[in-house]
């Protein structure tokens, strides 16, 4: 029996979420007296996981898995879970992991809980707390099957370093042609920009910015923070910004360390989408804007005046503290 984590990687290197997942798994392993096994696919330096408590790495090296394929990876994870007799299989909330996890749950006849916040409330019975109702509430969910699949919500568990080394074992799962019926034809990735999914800080603009021509102010502040840019629903509906930047209940969820909202009134649907962010700063000319009710810090004033000044101050701070 062990805990298996799917350690997501890109271009041969683990993503930060893989280390978070390892930290999380180690904590449950310590509570339940078991060990942590990580599954890695086409990664060169597997010892990086040992620093976060992984005891064993099952290394898969296979050219067929270079392009993303959910069905094939789900098949690999299933075989790894069976080989390790894993009772708990853990995923991050990256887009690819959320694509794979339900497939693995079916393959292992396992109950699945996504959007999990924090460690299990109890391991017997197995109960976890998860976000529901688009971040407006939590539910305590009990998984009643022998094997459990969890996807841990973004930014809901930090990195915890652990001393030790991990045993590495080459693993060659059997793959069949049926696993590869969905094919990647092409992919487009914005390069050199922080994505909303990975960002520690997100700077978001609303209709208060008055027009797409003023977005330079948002971009400058985001650049100073090293942040991703985002926008409210009306802004994407008006075509000022692409849909991929729309955050909120029907857009992308944001679970950043810091969310800065500029000229966004704070409709309930917008708040729902960004509420798992740890700290919220609201800049708005209207002191009655509902967003101030859920903000940690607020500045009431003219965004056109505040943004350039704040950008300079953040730049100066970064220059001093880097």
């Amino acid at each position, binding site marked *: 029996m062990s805990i298996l984590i799917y350690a997501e990687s890109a271009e041969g290197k683990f993503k930060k979420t893989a280390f978070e997942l390892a930290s999380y798994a180690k904590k449950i392993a310590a509570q339940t007296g078991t060990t942590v096994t990580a599954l890695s696919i086409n990664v060169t330096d597997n010892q990086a996981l040992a620093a976060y408590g992984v005891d064993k790495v099952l290394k898969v090296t296979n050219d067929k898995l270079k392009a993303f394929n959910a069905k094939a990876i789900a098949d690999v994870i299933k075989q790894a879970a069976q080989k390790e007799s894993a009772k708990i299989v853990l995923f991050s909330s990256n887009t690819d992991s959320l694509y794979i996890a339900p497939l693995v749950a*079916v393959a292992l006849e396992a109950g699945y809980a*996504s959007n999990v916040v924090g460690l299990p409330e109890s391991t017997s019975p197995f109960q976890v707390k998860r976000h529901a109702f688009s971040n407006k509430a939590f539910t305590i969910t009990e998984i*009643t099957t022998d094997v459990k699949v969890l996807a841990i919500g973004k930014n809901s568990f930090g990195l915890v370093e652990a001393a030790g080394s991990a045993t590495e074992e080459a693993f060659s799962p059997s793959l069949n042609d049926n696993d590869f019926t969905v094919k990647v034809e092409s992919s487009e990735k914005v390069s050199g920009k922080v994505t909303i999914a990975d960002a520690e800080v997100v700077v978001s603009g609303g209709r208060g910015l008055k027009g797409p021509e003023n977005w330079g102010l948002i971009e400058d502040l985001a650049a100073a923070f090293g942040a991703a840019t985002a926008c409210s629903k009306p802004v994407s509906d008006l075509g000022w910004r692409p849909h991929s930047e729309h955050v909120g209940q029907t857009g992308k969820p944001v679970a950043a360390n810091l969310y800065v909202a500029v000229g966004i009134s704070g409709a309930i649907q917008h708040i729902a989408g960004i509420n798992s962010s740890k700290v919220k700063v609201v800049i708005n000319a209207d002191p009655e804007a509902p967003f101030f009710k859920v903000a940690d810090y607020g500045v009431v004033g003219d965004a056109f005046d505040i943004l350039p000044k704040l950008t300079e101050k953040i730049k100066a701070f970064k220059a001093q503290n880097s």
Partner: protein
Amino acid sequence: MKILVCISHVPDTTAKINFTNGDSEFDTNGVQFVINPNDEFGLTRAIWFKEQAGATVTVVNVGGTDAEATLRKALAIGADEAIRVNAAPTDGFFVAKQLAEVVKNGGYDLVIAGKESLDYNGGMVPGMLAALLGFDFVNGTIKLDVNGSSATAVREIDGGKETLSATLPLVIAGQKGLVEEKDLRIPNMRGIMAARTKALTILEPTGATAATKSVKFEKPAPKSAVKLISPDNLDELVNLLHNEAKVI
């Protein structure tokens, strides 16, 4: 092409979320229910296929009698017939097993579901359904075209998008982008009248067991009041973000 669109019956996005019965149940008092927005994008795309290529569109919901109003709305928007599986949708695995039975018996080529529902946000039913059926599956789909038995889908990835090819039968988990928001349809009087005479079949559930159960609900802890900083004292904001919030 026979299309099945899975419809969740969820509280409107502006609904106040409260719980009742010792925080064990969602309080439906005064709450307006709607077609889950992610499902509505899929439904609209399905109707587009119907109009362009002569597909038939069936909508299905796993739920109680209260969901029938939502199914009638889907019929008024343009679906041909509706199915309700008479069971409480308490667990994603259970719901996926009910839907798998409907797909097998109905011989559908294309199943479209929303990427996640706005109530439980599990994001699991479409993938589980595909795995149970052995169908191809694309998650987070923002564009879908079908030509004969081959499909091209674009899915959102972290920081971009990816184009995939797949073969029918296929399960698609859709979201905004599948159609534009302005192309969503509001039922007109003719559609509403027509919906009254369209078939709504009620099926009893298969004996699948649930893999999870919701034990209780909690509301987030009330937030402490916002700290207001003067626009003339932005140094204080930087200071608070660094020393108090420790986020920069």
